[in-house]
């Protein structure tokens, strides 16, 4: 039970993210079937049985996943209640969230079973009813359900927001299956045009719902930058803008396809792939957002604009030497931390079971952490610069940049854990008993393997095949997972300032990963532009790391 409580908070967010993804794919699949494939099929030149079967198989898989994940989430939350309140399982499961979860799981299971055959009128009506019920129950697990004031506008906005995400993001895999399955330009035109219209309506629902929620949950400009909720909303907005740019590109291509049936649709497919990736990132960010109290509820201890500017103002030189107690600057830093701690003594604390308490940190700890971040920044800036140099004829030598990952791994191996071998008193194997050290060592190994792997890819060039896609996928995944990082529930300023640097890092990671994906999967102008975008995003990541400060 203690182990469960230790990882409860993290598992809850991950499960919530996976549930939102499965829900989007389930409802998106139904929307695709009912609004696009069903009505269009008589006008398509192909019979499309294979496409339909593939779409149904993906829909069934998504619905089963939604049922399983919901049951897992229910079990996890109930276990946390049983473990902390010592109540019987029956009482834990019968809470409001438990009843909603049971209905959602039953609806998802029903959808999985009903989606087994062709969508006749009765079956379609049943599927629609089940999906509306599941969505309604899902809104009972959102902020809107627990607000003490008027809830209906927020519940409707949340439902519209989730339905819009499902139709647009959740419909994308089905859209890709249909584009790949059809071979006729006329079919592509019909499918792309209808999906484009559905997406535009979905975007309208997402934006309208989002605006109502933002007005109620954030409430003021100061809460946008002053609270974790506002910052995470900004991250979602940044991702939405990336999606809208891709969507606009697709819209223009669909219009061209309408005028000229010979227009190639490769870009449409590749953009859709990237939209899926960024869309999943948005859903993970949404899961992270549900773990935060609305900014409007935290009027005290918000970050002030001048505090953010002060923290973000670059300091030169970066901390490239180990900290030294005798230096005056470190002593000053300690005084500053002591002052901040004193201000925190009477603040309201809130945390989730198993989260533990925040350990006090001294100036040396912070200086050590900044030193590690700044050196990592040097490596990442160099990687980005060499990837840019590689574009020039005279710079072919720079294609060996993945070897810098090995140098970074070696640096982290020596410096990440000052208590462990070879710097500290704890031996190599003894130190692995500390979960944090073990985690760092796994990362070091991962970075080294990753560097060697990508180096081989660069040496093989176009012969590398699908292995080349590991780098963009890992980068994009890293960025996405940064958005599910831990949050201080109350406004703890020093933690919030650190978290703030994570958001631009995550957005740059997502942009870099998917730009590299487009470079590899496309050709022509877009590919050439993407080849410049991702190294620049890497340089930005490096510069953010170089500017990283904890006090």
């Amino acid at each position, binding site marked *: 039970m203690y182990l469960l409580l230790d990882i409860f908070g993290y598992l809850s967010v991950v499960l919530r993210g996976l549930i939102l993804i499965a829900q989007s794919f389930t409802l998106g699949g139904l929307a695709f079937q009912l609004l696009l494939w069903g009505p269009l099929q008589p006008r398509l030149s192909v019979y499309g049985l294979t496409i339909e079967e593939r779409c149904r198989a993906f829909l069934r898989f998504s619905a089963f996943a939604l049922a399983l994940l919901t049951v897992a989430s229910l079990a996890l939350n109930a276990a946390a209640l049983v473990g902390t309140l010592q109540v019987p399982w029956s009482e834990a499961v019968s809470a409001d969230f438990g009843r909603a979860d049971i209905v959602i799981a039953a609806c998802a299971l029903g959808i999985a079973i009903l989606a087994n055959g062709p969508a006749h009128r009765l079956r379609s009506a049943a599927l629609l009813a089940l999906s509306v019920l599941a969505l309604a129950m899902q809104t009972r697990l959102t902020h809107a359900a627990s607000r003490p004031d008027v809830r209906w506008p927020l519940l409707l906005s949340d439902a519209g927001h989730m339905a819009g995400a499902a139709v647009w993001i959740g419909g994308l895999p089905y859209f890709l299956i249909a584009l790949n399955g059809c071979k006729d330009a006329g079919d592509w035109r019909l499918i792309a045009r209808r999906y484009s219209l559905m997406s535009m309506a979905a975007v309208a629902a997402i934006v309208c719902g989002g605006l109502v929620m933002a007005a109620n949950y954030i409430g003021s400009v100061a809460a946008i930058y002053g609270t974790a909720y506002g910052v995470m909303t900004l991250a979602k907005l940044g991702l939405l803008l990336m999606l809208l740019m891709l969507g606009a590109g697709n819209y223009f291509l669909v219009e061209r396809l309408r005028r000229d049936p010979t227009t190639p649709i490769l870009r449409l497919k590749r953009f859709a792939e990237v939209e899926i990736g960024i869309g999943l990132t948005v859903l993970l960010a949404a899961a992270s957002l549900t773990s935060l109290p609305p900014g409007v509820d935290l009027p005290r201890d918000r970050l002030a604009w001048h505090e953010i500017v002060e923290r973000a103002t670059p300091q030169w030189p970066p901390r490239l030497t180990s900290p030294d107690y005798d230096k005056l600057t470190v002593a000053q830093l300690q005084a500053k931390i002591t002052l901040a701690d004193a201000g925190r003594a009477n603040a309201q604390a*809130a*945390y989730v079971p198993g989260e533990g308490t925040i350990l006090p940190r001294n100036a040396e700890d912070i200086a050590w952490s900044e030193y590690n971040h700044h050196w990592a920044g040097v490596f990442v800036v160099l990687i980005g610069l060499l990837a840019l140099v590689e574009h020039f004829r005279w710079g072919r030598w720079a294609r060996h940049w993945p070897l810098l990952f090995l140098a970074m791994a070696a640096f982290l191996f020596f410096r990440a854990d000052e208590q462990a071998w070879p710097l500290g008193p704890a031996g190599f194997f003894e130190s692995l008993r500390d979960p944090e050290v073990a985690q760092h060592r796994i990362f070091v190994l991962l970075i080294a393997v990753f560097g060697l792997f990508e180096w081989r890819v660069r040496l093989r060039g176009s012969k590398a095949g699908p292995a080349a896609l590991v780098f963009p996928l890992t980068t994009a995944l890293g960025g996405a997972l*940064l958005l599910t990082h831990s949050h201080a529930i109350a406004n703890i300023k020093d933690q919030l300032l650190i978290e703030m640097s994570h958001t631009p890092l995550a957005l740059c990671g997502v942009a870099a990963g998917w730009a590299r994906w487009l470079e590899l999967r496309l050709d022509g102008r877009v590919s050439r532009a993407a080849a410049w975008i991702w190294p620049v995003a890497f340089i930005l990541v490096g510069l953010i790391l170089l500017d990283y400060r904890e006090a």
Partner: protein
Amino acid sequence: MRAFFRIAFVLSALWFLAHPNASQAHAIIVSSSPAAGATVSGDTVAIRLHFNSRIDRARSKLTLLAPDGAARALTPASDAPADELNADATRLPAGAWHLRWQVLSVDGHITRGDIPFTVH
């Protein structure tokens, strides 16, 4: 292709394992009596916790931690507003006390917290 998916899966699993600190919760205290750091009289301490969301009182708890660390469970009042957790504590000896709360908000999130106060 299979190797590619294997690598992608392993990398994803490692990324997931590497970020074990995220939290899911959002019921927080908007105002409390006693306030954090307050000094009160120990005869009768009226505990009034006002949250930012409606809470499931049957699945929430209040515990007082005495200066010597002993825990005393409190029974939340059943007639409090939907976003409050209230109780009365009587005859508290002087010293530094902690009020530990755990609530389940109606949307299913569990939150905990501590309020330190002094009894004179």
